[in-house]
């Protein structure tokens, strides 16, 4: 049962990282245009080289 002392904090930590990541994406306005963003990957404008 000692394994729980590692596993529970680890699971909370991993979940917490996910939560912080989500809050980061939310704050940086990444959900403002979900439809446009999902379409933009199909755009071939910058396929050859990245935008400077």
């Amino acid at each position, binding site marked *: *049962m000692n394994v*729980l002392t590692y596993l*529970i904090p680890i*699971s*909370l930590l991993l*979940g*917490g990282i*996910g*939560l912080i990541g*989500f*809050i980061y994406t*939310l704050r940086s306005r990444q*959900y*403002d*245009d*979900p*439809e*446009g963003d999902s*379409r*933009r990957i*199909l*755009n071939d*404008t910058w396929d050859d080289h990245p935008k400077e």
Partner: protein
Amino acid sequence: MTSAVTNTPVACPGCVAMPTQDTGTPVADARLMLSLPTIHCQNCIASVEKTLAAHPGVHSARVNLTLKRALIDAAPEVTAAELIRRLEVTGFEAYELDPAAINETATRTAARDLLMRLAVAGFASMNVMLLSVAVWSGATDTTRDLFHWISAAITLPAIAFSAQPFFRNAWSALRAGRLNMDVPISLAILLALVTSLWETWLSGHHAYFDAALTLTFFLLAGRWLDARARSAARSAAEELTALEVPRAWRIENATPVEVSVAALQVGDHILVHPGARAPVDGIVTEGRSEVDRSMLTGETLPEVRRSGDAMSAGEVNLTGPLTLRATAVGQDTSLQRMAALVAIAESGRSRYTSLADRAAKLYAPGVHILSALAFLGWLIWSGDMRVSLNIAAAVLIITCPCALGLAVPAVTTAASGRLFGRGLLIKNATALERLAEVDTVVFDKTGTLTTGHPSLTNWSALNASQQRLAYALAKASAHPLSRAIAEAAQADGIEPTPLDEVIERPGYGTMATVERTNVRLGRPEWVGIETDHDGLCAGLDSGTGNAVVLRFEDKHRPGAVETVSGLQDLGIDVILLSGDRTSAVDRFAQTVRIADWHAEMLPEEKARFLQRLKSDGRRVLMVGDGLNDTAALAAAHVSISPAQALDAARAASDMVLLGRDLSPISEAVSVARMATRRIRENFRIATLYNIVAVPLAVAGLATPLIAALAMSTSSISVSLNALRVRGRG
């Protein structure tokens, strides 16, 4: 000043449709916003951004496909009109927006705030669920207690943060002495927490921490969907208001100065440019022109105005500049008096209670009574406070409106998303439900079923030299009929005849000389011909003695015929109401195949007509755009107006059609019917789960595992059912 008519060369047929007051309004702000109702794919994004970026003054342009909007950072001298023209050449409809009128922060933060709480609830419920699964699969004694304590440690702060919207709503409802959905929700969450803590303290078997969290999670998901759909609709509605910038030209010391309409006073002299709308009621003191009254009356024939004539706010000046002495401004104008009719009609509209409200009204007291009875029953039977409280909590959790909270928002979000994709904006939360009940549709004619722009009908009856001459004369004027001629000529690729001494006589027409012969294009009586055509027409005198009549017609909008027949196929009666003359309405009704039509209707008559239909027990959808329709729009069961409609008309309607095509209307009716069917189905699904699970809870057989299963399966099945509304499109 009197005959200084700017001759704007028309670059493309798309520009002809542009209202002239838009051209050349300088925008002080370097940030421009455009509404793009027709964009739908990655190619649209790419070509819009490329078109905009190709303009030398544009620093950056970004399209938001979800909002169908483009945000442009540009040099101050770039005007939205230029960019719109470029986009129209590429084939995109575009409208200017006033960024100041769009209150983006307020509408979006509410949805963002809910999403943040949703994320926290989701995170916490997943972790607690992991621990709970361990308990359910057989953890005992100290391990179980440890798991319960850890769950409590996660749950308490998570609930304190995530469930705040429910607690706040419930508290304000209770303070006002009412019951709403949030009262049983808050009670269930709090009771679940209290009994679980108590159980954990006494190292009991059952704790409902996971249930409290999943409950919060699912309900927040419903709230978030709702808020998102509403904020999208609200921002788009604000967008439409942002389309009209209220400006007027006041004459101060003989020079016109641009001022806000609100600053105008009685007695001010105001210059109304050709193509602009009169901002006040007034008397014409200088100039002679024709005015378009169709927004006020539905009448398509322009009227002549000369010095001494009265002009009312909302009339559009067509040819020459007019100077008005204001006789009524602001709230006193006839335009505003007409808007006051709306307030009267609206107060008569009975408050519609949505399906969700009706469900909540039955539900909230039912749940409380049930759980209180379970508590009392067990207390009397067993005398054990702890057991009774546990059972009361289980009843509240199981009956809690997880599925109910999702049933409506999930469906309306899916349906309004689908309709928004087709260019129909739903402003009012209950509009879809009301639309589903519609059995009669009343259309306005001018500007709603028709484009509001005349087009030439007998172009091919002219010989080649007449066509070239007509085009040449038409190019010299910005009058709508001239623009219709230019449009027809450009479509045929005709070269204009070279003209000398072109003079536009506002209110009459254009005259010029060709090889020393006088030629004229204008009002038939001015050109000197008799005509029996009672619609829109103009005369062309080519100097050779035989003048010809050019006939015009206000063409129906794209999709008008299909929409009318589509609605009739759905078993809906279609009625046409117009303020236009009987002959014009009769002809038009035949082309769109509407048997039931009424012409020469005054605004009050339209509203009264709708009231009469209503008292006959009919549910009417009113579609209209003009000021003469606003009272009728407000009196109808549900109403739609096109985006080009007056602000007052849009404000009075529940839905706004963003594109020029009318066909989303018939689709909207069938989507609304489907959506209401799904909402009812969802209620039935949720009730079914309750019927199965509630007896278990009351009998004391419900474990946290059963509660979690019932809650999740009902929520998921309700959401999946809602997704069916989206269809395959």
